[in-house]
């Protein structure tokens, strides 16, 4: 069967957030602004890449029955490092992300990739996988933040977390036309549901295309 799944298709279908429903807690809570999304995304990419590297490095010497505590120690150390760096160099990001930096430890994506991929593959491949998953996650939460910030506050803004300088701040919806629902809890669930449904619809579309192709191939 031809492998028609290009890079972007894979990104959409095997999306950890909307396709596989991993790492949902953080993607619902902090996606109120683009800043938060990028900050969290970078933190998760860092932790994912390095945890994959370290897990892959020790994969041959960890006994199989205690691999979970080992992974937990590796990931927790990395997250503590990230937390301290953010607290020191980007305090506004630290207050915005709050407890969710700590919750990167129990982010299903990181432990999941460590168990599924990094424990069985080489260091290079694991690092690459971590990077791809992290980028995929970042793009997903960026998409959510984009919609939520645009509809919820009417403007899109980005500021440098290291010195609070605004990079851009454009108002796209006229004052008074924004929907504050989207910055709150209900909006988070709604946006997530619609985006997840879009990805599911795309998956279904791809499945029907595949089925038609196999039928055509079978009848020839």
């Amino acid at each position, binding site marked *: 069967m031809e492998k028609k799944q290009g890079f972007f298709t894979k990104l959409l279908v095997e999306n950890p957030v909307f*396709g*596989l*429903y*991993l790492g949902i807690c953080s993607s619902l809570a902090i996606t109120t602004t683009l800043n938060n999304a990028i900050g969290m995304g970078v933190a998760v990419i860092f932790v994912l890449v390095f945890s994959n590297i370290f897990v892959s490095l020790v994969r041959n010497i960890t006994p199989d*029955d*205690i691999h*979970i*505590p080992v992974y*937990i*120690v590796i990931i927790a150390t990395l997250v503590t490092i990230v937390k301290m760096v953010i607290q020191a160099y980007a305090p506004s990001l630290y207050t915005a992300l709050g407890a969710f930096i700590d919750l990167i430890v129990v982010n*299903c994506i990181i432990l*999941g*990739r460590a*168990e*599924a991929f990094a424990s069985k593959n080489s260091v290079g491949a694991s690092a690459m996988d971590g990077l791809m998953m992290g980028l995929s996650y970042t793009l997903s939460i960026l998409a959510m933040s984009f919609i939520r910030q645009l509809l919820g506050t009417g403007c899109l803004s980005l500021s440098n977390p290291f010195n609070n300088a605004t990079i851009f701040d454009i108002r796209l919806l006229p004052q008074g036309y924004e929907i504050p629902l989207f910055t709150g809890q209900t909006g988070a669930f709604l946006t997530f549901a619609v985006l997840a449904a879009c990805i599911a619809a795309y998956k279904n579309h791809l499945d029907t295309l595949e089925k038609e192709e196999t039928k055509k191939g079978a009848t020839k």
Partner: protein
Amino acid sequence: MSPLSIIVAVILVVGLFGINVWLYRANQATPVPEGCEDLTPQCATCGIVDCAIRSKQRKGEENGNR
């Protein structure tokens, strides 16, 4: 940060890790009560396919199909 507090920190992490390993091994050694061997959590809607429970289920299916 005094060297003493660093040593204590290392001892703390190693100690907790050691307790973890001991409890993990002890837990795996305790048999499941009778009548409960075939229980599987009904978590089919969950997307975490790499979960420890799912991989156990998959291993059990592979062994059962041989």
